């Protein structure tokens, strides 16, 4: 499902970070642990094809992400990845419903309104369609961001610090939804975090510890 092979990324001619090799089967999950600046974001960017490795390969379902042409990589990313960013990044200019249309609009596809309704109902945010993001509670906003990530049935869900700034209850809730979504669709979860709570919560997940912080 997900494979790192001899993966390196060069920040500057002098500074290079090397990631351990890894092989994830379908249904496996991955925790990427490490302090800020340890290369977690870089790894996520490499998986998403936003950065190209200086050497080595990232393969997702056999596709070598780095070898895709730029335009193909964008399309691939939209179709394969679900992304839950740390700050959620719901557009403040758009209502919840219009935010959830974005995955389709961005991919240049017809907006699948029944699918949006299904996912919203499933996550219990069906009544929030016409709210603006700033009118949502933190928990509601998390659900909207998760819904946005799930709409196009991704094979791989990337979550960047999904529990940061959440209290225990909200964190449990957010992680529960994430795990449930992954198990329902058979998607692989990649969670980047430095939150200990997450470690306890995804037992059996592969753990990638990034210790050595590369010099800036």
């Amino acid at each position, binding site marked *: 499902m997900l494979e790192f092979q001899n993966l390196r990324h060069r920040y500057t001619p002098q500074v290079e970070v090397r990631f351990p090799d890894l092989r994830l089967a379908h249904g496996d999950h991955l925790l990427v642990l490490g302090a*800020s600046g340890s290369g977690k*974001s*870089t790894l*996520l*960017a490499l998986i*998403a094809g*936003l*950065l190209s490795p200086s050497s080595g390969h990232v393969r997702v379902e056999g596709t070598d992400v780095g070898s895709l042409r*730029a*335009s193909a990589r*964008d*399309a*691939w*990313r*939209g*179709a394969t*990845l679900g*992304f839950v*960013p*740390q*700050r959620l*990044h719901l*557009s*403040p*200019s*758009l209502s919840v419903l*219009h935010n959830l*249309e*974005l*995955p*389709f*609009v*961005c*991919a*240049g596809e017809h*907006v699948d309104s029944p699918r949006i309704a299904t996912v919203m109902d499933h996550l219990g945010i069906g009544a929030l369609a016409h709210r603006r993001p700033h009118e949502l509670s933190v928990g509601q906003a998390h659900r909207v961001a998760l819904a*946005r990530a799930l709409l196009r049935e991704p094979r791989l869900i990337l979550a*960047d*610090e999904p529990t940061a700034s959440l209290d225990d209850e909200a964190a449990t809730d957010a992680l529960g939804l994430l795990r449930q979504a992954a198990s329902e669709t058979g998607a692989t979860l990649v969670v980047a975090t430095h939150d200990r709570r997450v470690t306890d919560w995804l037992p059996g997940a592969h753990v990638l510890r990034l210790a050595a912080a590369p010099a800036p």
Partner: protein
Amino acid sequence: MRLALLAWRYLWARPLVAVLNLVLLSLGLASMTFVILASEQVEHAVQRDLAGIDLVVGAKGSPMQLILSGVFHLDSPTGNIPLGTVKLLRDHPLVARVVPLSLGDSLHGFRIVGTTREYLDLYGGQIELGRTWKIPLEAVLGADAAAELKLRPGDTFAGSHGLGMGGDEHDHYRYTVVGTLARTGTVLDRLVVTSTESVWAVHAHHGSAPAEAAPPADDHQDDHDHGHDGDHDAAHEDEDDPREVTLLLVSYRSPLAAVSLPRWVNAQPALQSAAPAFETARLMKMVGAGTEVLRGFGIVLLAAAGLSVFIGLYHAVRERQADLAMMRMLGAPPRRVATLVVAEALWLALLGIIIGLVAGHAVTHLLGSYLQTERSLSLTGAWVSPWEAVVPAAAVLLALLSAALPAVRAFRLDVTKLLQAH
């Protein structure tokens, strides 16, 4: 299509900025539309009013005044000339047609013109109701005059002395309307036309009538607006017939006449000639300065609008960096993100084009109705000019220019920053 809708939502996510940009853009485009409509109509009107008139002959004075009073009926005449001049010019081998005009009276601001039927032919005037005049004191009304004054064949009216409103009425001599003219789109629409003899008849008892061969009466001195205060003495020097007309509209038989006829006319002691083409070119140059100012104003407005749209979009791209990066994350290629920015500017352009064109036509129409009450130039908002195509072209060009740099920024957005928002 969905991208256009998204751009529309982004545009109105900041309503104040959108309205400001739209107002600036619409004002610029509206003034552009207005300049196009007004200058084209004025030029057309002038060309139509000049129809077939090669030379205007009148009493000594300013050639411009002769043209303005004789062709466009905007100014007061320079004075009168002897009736004998008509025959003198008609007999000239280089002259094809001479139409005499006698001016001096008006009806609620519409000028009463004493002339011959040839004057109607000059402008292609066709009788719509009734007939043309047969005897003195019968009059025919131009289309605008008839509509405005609500006069029909059979009605009577008294002209008032002078060319403005509020002169003394010639109560003893009432004109009878015998016909109205179809619209010609020329100055004829705004005139009351009658025979030369009518004007003589009205003024015979007024004390200023040339027919009495008397020097100007004392009670006439204050009628400074009156076209019949001519150079009587000069005009009468070697004429048996003491009757006068105000000016003559002359058409040449051959282009050669342009060389010799004006000089010949100007050599006559009481006569002055003016070439409409030349004077009009001079006039348009003067009016043109005003047009240039308006055009410049429009361009300044458009430049301000462009700058404002640019600043608005530039800020928008910065503010929405996260949104745009998230769009990339969701699978949008860079060009789609850049297109979103351009589409927002194009929405503004589209709205600006609609509002600008409508407002430009509306302002032209308003000015037209105002000028109509002034009995002046006719302008209409219903006019459509091919040059108006410049308006959408300018708007789209402006939108593309303003959106270019913000779009490039959106295109080059660093998406990895989205992952580093700690």
